[in-house]
């Protein structure tokens, strides 16, 4: 087993940062959730402990650029990673078909949770309402993310600096 070192986590951090910036610069109706695709494609082949750390790192990066607090982002992304870790014991989630299906479901789950948390926080703070995502936009992002996940499951573990984070020990 290859051991992940600080520089590999730094590489993951840089890739997450680039994913966010690219998503921001290219954003459109069919823009996939690049951060989620990157994280899940990697987590499918990581050790449990490191996959959880990757989820928390992704949550910190995401929260530092968006209005989403890192607790909410962390709960959403860690939940997604835990789901992947559970499913991969009986399904090959790094195969393109299953990676796509998994990603399609995770986009709904993660953003649905984000909406739920935003609505709950607005309720407790008595700060107006937070409307949920439009179903069309939801489906577009889920489809594009699912399509990208089919490629990402092969590409992401080979990205410079990330291969030492990948393992098959589970």
């Amino acid at each position, binding site marked *: 087993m290859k051991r992940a070192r600080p520089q590999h986590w730094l590489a993951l951090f840089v890739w997450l*940062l680039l994913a*966010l*910036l690219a*998503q*921001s*610069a290219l*954003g*459109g*109706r069919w*823009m996939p*959730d*690049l*951060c989620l695709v990157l994280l899940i494609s990697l987590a499918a082949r990581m050790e*449990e*402990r490191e996959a*959880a750390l990757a989820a928390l790192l992704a949550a*910190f*990066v*995401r*929260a*530092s*650029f*968006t*209005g*989403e*607090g*890192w*607790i*909410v982002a*962390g*709960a*959403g992304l*860690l*939940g997604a990673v*835990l789901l992947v*870790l559970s499913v991969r014991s009986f399904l090959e989630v790094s195969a393109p078909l299953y990676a796509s299906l998994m990603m399609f479901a995770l986009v709904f789950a993660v*953003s649905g*949770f*984000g*909406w*739920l*948390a*935003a609505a*709950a*926080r*607005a309720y*407790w703070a008595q*700060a*107006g*309402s*937070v*409307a*949920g*995502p*439009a179903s069309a*936009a*939801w489906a577009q*992002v889920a489809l594009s993310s699912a399509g990208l996940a089919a490629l990402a499951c092969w590409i992401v573990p080979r990205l410079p600096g990330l291969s030492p984070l990948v393992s098959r020990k589970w």
Partner: protein
Amino acid sequence: MSRNTLVILWMALLALSLRPVAPIERAAEWLSVPMRLVSALAAPLNLSRTAQAGSEEDQALAQSARQLLQREQASVVPADPSLVQERNLIHAEIVDRGAAGEDRLIVRHAAAAPVQVGLPVVAGSAYVGRVIEVGRAGTVLLPGEARIELITREDARVEARTQNAVLILGGLCSQSRDGARARQLAVHAQQGELVPGETVRVGERVDPMSGAAVLANGYTIGTLVPRPHGGREGWSVAPVIDYRGGLGQVLILAPQNTASAADLLVHDPLERAGWFSARLALAATPCFWRETRRLHAGTRQGLSSGACVAARGHYLGRLEQTEWLVSDVRLLEDPGSSVLVLADFGVEDAPLHLGLLHTRSFDRATGRLELEWQAGVEALRQVALRRNRRVDLYTGSGDRWVPAGLRIGSTELSASRTEQLLVITRPAWVAGTVEVDVWRPQQQESGS
């Protein structure tokens, strides 16, 4: 770290996401400060997608917004000379609708103006209410501010007259079957013959006990409407103005022998002095269903939650949460956000306050923004009187954290539908801009 530990950690985060605990939230914010700095360092990589337009266009927009606000001020002066004679007219702008309940508003006027408790408040030829508190140093209200009570308040009373009758009215009738949008004023006592459709005007008795209330004599309240109640004859008054959302600027009537009143508002909200320039962390958000941004400025720069964020004369949104170094911006495009809106019908018609509009949806690809407007019957009547239905929407008065006169977009109004979906196409650069201005009213006031 075992699977069980991860699950416990996740469940703790899950619980804290749904029910935030203030000390933990604060600790989490401090923990994430280094990451926020990273987003500031990455700012040079962040390119806005569309080129910024020239300053000539911006100046033209600022000019048209100023003209709109001047027309709005002019529209609250009564056209009938008899309503102006022997009175001092003091302009005031509503700066807070929510702080004192729906029937009490806070207005700002020239600090030197002779405003006193009991003075009547009007808008155009319509009666609005009266001053109940004047701001002084050391009180909740600042000098140059006053609290007014609308005639719609339950315990408000005013003596009014029709052609052949005298009425005591004030407060709202219990809700009619048309729902909250058809609000009518309650008639508590009557003497003389009442005729449906007759105009009801303020008619306070001229005696020393009436005080300044007589200054409102002749101002219109509304029209008489029969309102049978429990088999008996009853009456109510349909008001001429929309007391909930239709007020942006008003006039306070003072006796003529008082010191001269300033005839203009204290300051121009579009002056540079009140704005702080800042930069957004990203031109767009990775969260596809929300339109929020992170701003690289916070309480350290004197910014406060709720402050307006604008760019080149366009309204963008407001600060939802402010921390020491960064703030979260909730854009107008974010579903569920709201803004007080002033509609510009063109130079020939007076602007109209539409009240609070809520965002229903936004399409990033096309810039199509849908705003919900719950129109009152009084507002629809005002729209029907206008020749032009194509309007430009701007921010309106009524929120001290959002200056009036910032452009939102163009749309078309209907004079018949009480629930309207106003469709606006936002300029492409608005979604992609990273250079913004944040409103700091305290700086603006000290500057003026």
